[in-house]
């Protein structure tokens, strides 16, 4: 595949991913106001996600997981964090508009970078500091501007 074609496909998929992600927030907002409580909605959406991921994982199974206990442990911790994150997200979207909640939730790469620094996986750079300041300023603006 030539580079130009690869770029077009990659950009299309990236924009598609951003669109889909944005749409999921709107679906949650509508769902938690019309169909179910945030905790019930979270449980159902995770369950259906799990069903689909099971089908996909069965196509490319991984063996010898017992020998990768440490990695399995980390993934289990990630699962616990995702469960908490999704529950908090659904509650947030049930209480406030998407236009307020979505930008704040999308700041998670900042916390990934900060925690990565704590685990010594990444260094603090000037771009990280600038990015942190911009995110914090953004959250402050949104908090002040909510509902006004």
């Amino acid at each position: 595949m030539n580079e130009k074609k690869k770029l077009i496909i990659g950009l299309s998929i990236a924009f598609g991913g951003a669109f889909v992600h944005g749409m999921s927030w709107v679906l949650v907002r509508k769902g938690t106001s019309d169909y179910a409580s945030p905790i019930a909605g979270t449980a159902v959406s995770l369950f259906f996600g799990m069903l689909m991921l099971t089908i996909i994982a069965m196509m490319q199974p991984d063996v010898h997981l017992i020998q990768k206990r440490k990695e399995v442990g980390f993934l289990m911790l990630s699962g616990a964090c995702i469960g908490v994150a999704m529950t908090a997200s659904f509650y947030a979207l049930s209480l406030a508009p998407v236009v307020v909640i979505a930008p704040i939730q999308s700041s998670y790469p900042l916390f990934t970078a900060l925690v990565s620094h704590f685990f010594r996986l990444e260094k603090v750079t000037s771009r990280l500091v600038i990015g942190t300041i911009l995110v914090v300023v953004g959250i402050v603006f949104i908090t002040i501007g909510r509902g006004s």
Partner: protein
Amino acid sequence: MYSILPIIFAIAAAIFWGVAAVFVRLGLKRIKPQVGALISIVISVLLVGLLALILNFEELVSLTFPALLWFGLVGIVYHVIGRYASFFSIQYIGAVKSSPILGSAPLFATALAIIFIGEEVNYLVIIGTVSIIAGIYFVSTSK
């Protein structure tokens, strides 16, 4: 104006998503992404499912078909389509090019929310959104 509680929930969600991403990175060193995603989500289902059963048992067992369909769609859209879109876009064009685009999801969310569910936005929220997106661009390209 509504309370600050949803803002706190949103920040908490961002923190836990951020921490989860680090654990995923550590976990996928020797495990395939498809299997890793499954291990992770099984724990999420067990944790949240148990909480939902304890707190909202009656609601959970009496969910209507439209509710199941709606949130089932959310689950598939977010956990499968969204996840693999990120994965494949990084594979095709790399994280440096794809991260800022993927990070523009709030703009799509805002536009879709205005179009489909009639939300309104003021200049403070717009400035805040742009600031956050710019901030995430700097963070994503800080390596």
